[in-house]
């Protein structure tokens, strides 16, 4: 690889890297993607084992710090009340994601104009709408047309069945007259493009052994490699290098044996996610870019946004068959999505219902809350909880704040000695009020659905899985890192296409939008090849 200069080098084979690789393969360009992780083997996913419920504590855990895989890099998130959750492999974090796949609302691109907070995006909903459609087709999105929370949109597959649990919760929403709708889900509900249909295994968050969940190792990557894109695994990129002309000329990376190598490229695209991307740009500091690459604005790593998650769980009298069906894909409500200042905060959130728990998790909940004692009475107490929990999470819109940031840790390094990211994040008052509001509304709807008891957790510490804002887009190089089509203001052949570019976070899961953006950038590149670096 070292002697050759490729036309396009993509770093990161997750959600965004896969989408842009597939689209750029339409050209005759020589496209290479470097990924630090491996291809996954679905036969090894925990749902193939009886002890699947314990999978999330081992090598399929949420945190790279506890997972113990050598393909991970550690993250110092001790300065944040929310911990980083990701996955490093072909497919990236989509290996673990729930596949809840909403779009942003049109208003999410105009937050400053509508509500006087955050900033407006330099693109709008209409710009991304055709790419949302392409992405729905490629990822295999299931859902139901006609959701009154959105402009009309295409959904190629029928919705994930609600099951007894979903219908019970829907009853609660109906009783209160609140919006709800079957979730758009990147889950093949029928045989689709060679993918087997969902058979309601349950534990999507530790990988889908059926291949029904749209992680990009089973969606974009097979299609991209068929079109000629090369994907090199176990290549950990340390830095993007700059030539004498001020353009990116390639990367330095470590191969599987830990040997440092160089790969030359005409165009470099970074798709390492909202934490991995600023880490790479900051690690690419040089004499000409002493504060990190593409960082003349000083904003690389700043304005870091999560979606603070609240979790609300109801305990019901009757069994709900909650172990059947995709964990995070059932119904969602956007009753509290748009700003209503009488609630005490700006912007809003989505309520995403979640299915029930496995028996092991139920026993742990019982142990942790003192509801299921050992000894006499154990079975009776367990039966009160088992298959009787249902709930929801609230995905709260976080607003950009410069002090929330990703920097390089002065001491922590990965197995190749590359400095690790450090997170400094404080939950804003606006987000805190929103989380509290969500717990109160979640309680109301669960009670309306028949819950006899409701447990509320205003901030889910493990839920740092939506990583955004750390290389924001904009038209002004002084206040943004990339332009409106992902090209770095400072380095004209360097692009960023993941959640780092988000100006604001919206109150929905980000993957559909960041992939639509990656597809849009690919089209801009394809249509401007003649004068791409002007």
């Amino acid at each position, binding site marked *: 690889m070292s002697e050759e200069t490729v036309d396009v080098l993509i770093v990161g084979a997750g959600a965004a890297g896969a989408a842009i690789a597939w689209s750029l393969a339409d050209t005759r360009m020589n496209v290479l993607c470097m990924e630090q992780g491996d291809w996954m083997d679905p036969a090894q*996913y925990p*749902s*193939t084992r*009886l*002890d*699947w*419920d*314990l999978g999330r504590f081992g090598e399929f855990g949420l945190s790279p710090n506890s997972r113990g895989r050598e393909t991970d890099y550690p993250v110092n998130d001790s300065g944040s009340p929310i911990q980083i959750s990701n996955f490093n492999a072909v497919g990236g974090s989509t290996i673990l994601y729930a596949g809840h796949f909403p779009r942003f*609302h*049109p*208003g999410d*691109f105009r937050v400053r*104009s*509508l509500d006087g907070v955050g900033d407006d995006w330099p693109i*709008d909903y209409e710009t991304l709408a055709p790419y949302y459609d392409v992405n729905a087709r490629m990822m295999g999105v299931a859902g*139901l047309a*006609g959701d*009154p*929370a959105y*402009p009309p949109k295409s959904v190629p597959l029928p*919705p994930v*069945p*609600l*099951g007894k649990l*979903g*219908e019970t919760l*829907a*009853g609660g*929403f*109906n009783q209160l*007259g609140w*919006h*709800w*709708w*079957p979730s758009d889900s990147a889950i093949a509900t029928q045989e689709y493009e060679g993918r087997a249909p*969902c*058979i*309601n*295994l*349950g*534990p999507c968050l530790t990988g889908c*052994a*059926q291949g029904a969940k749209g992680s990009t190792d089973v969606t974009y990557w097979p299609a991209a490699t068929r079109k000629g894109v090369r994907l090199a695994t176990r290549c950990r990129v340390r830095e993007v290098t700059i030539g004498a002309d001020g353009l990116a000329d390639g990367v330095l990376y470590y191969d599987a044996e830990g040997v440092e190598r160089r790969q030359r490229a005409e165009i470099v695209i970074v798709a390492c996610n909202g934490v991995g991307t600023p880490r790479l740009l900051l690690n690419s500091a040089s004499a000409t870019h002493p504060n990190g690459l593409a960082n003349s604005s000083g904003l690389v790593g700043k304005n870091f946004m999560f979606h603070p998650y609240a979790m609300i769980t109801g305990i019901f009298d009757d069994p709900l068959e909650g*172990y*059947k069906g995709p964990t995070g894909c059932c119904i969602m409500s956007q009753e509290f*999505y*748009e700003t209503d200042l009488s609630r005490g905060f700006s912007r809003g959130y989505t309520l995403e219902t979640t299915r029930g728990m*496995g*028996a*092991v998790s*139920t*026993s*742990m909940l*019982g142990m942790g809350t003192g509801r299921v004692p*050992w*000894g006499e009475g*154990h*079975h009776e107490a367990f039966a009160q909880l*088992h*298959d009787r929990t249902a709930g929801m999470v609230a995905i709260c819109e976080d607003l950009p704040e410069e002090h929330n940031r990703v920097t390089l840790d002065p001491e922590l390094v990965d197995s190749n000695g590359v400095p690790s990211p450090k997170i400094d994040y404080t939950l804003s008052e606006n987000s805190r009020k929103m989380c509290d509001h969500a717990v109160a509304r979640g309680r109301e709807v669960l009670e309306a659905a028949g819950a006899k008891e409701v447990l509320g957790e205003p901030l889910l510490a493990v839920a740092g899985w939506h990583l955004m804002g750390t290389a924001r887009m904009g038209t002004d190089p002084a206040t943004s890192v990339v332009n409106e089509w992902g090209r770095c203001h400072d380095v004209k052949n360097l692009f960023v296409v993941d959640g780092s570019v988000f100006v604001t976070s919206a109150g929905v899961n980000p993957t559909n939008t960041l992939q639509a953006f990656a597809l849009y950038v690919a089209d801009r590149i394809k249509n401007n090849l003649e004068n791409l670096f002007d």
Partner: protein
Amino acid sequence: MSEAYEALSPDQSRALTAVLDEIIPPSRDGRLPGAGALGLAAAIEDKMREQPILQPAVVGGLETLAALAREAGAGNFADVAAGERVDLLNRLAADAPAFLPGLIFQTYTTYYHQAAVLEGLGIPGRPPHPEGYPVAPSDESLLDAVRDRGPVYRQP
């Protein structure tokens, strides 16, 4: 892995099995076995072999328990009269505080993924994959009220 791992003696295994049956006894209706009778002592030993850090607390706890059993006039916790065992375990909780919470955690998380237990709970005693679970299609008329309200988003 520690080289110092020492298997439990037959006496200790017997006591551990009896303790497990106290933590999760058989259900009254007989559908769910006790954790000891289910053979979880071997699974707990396997865990200790994998994670030797667990061993001192378990072995220490079993030694204290053996001493308490002797005080109660029995050679082994398993020989203590059924009605007195819980008392002894409560005393153990005071004398060896690290033992019971850790063992309860291991017992719960091991017990609840055994095929016999899942079947007793009315769930198929198999991994979710490859058979999965059927779920009937949903009743879309539930959405009528939502549709009737019309659009609920803002156009900028």
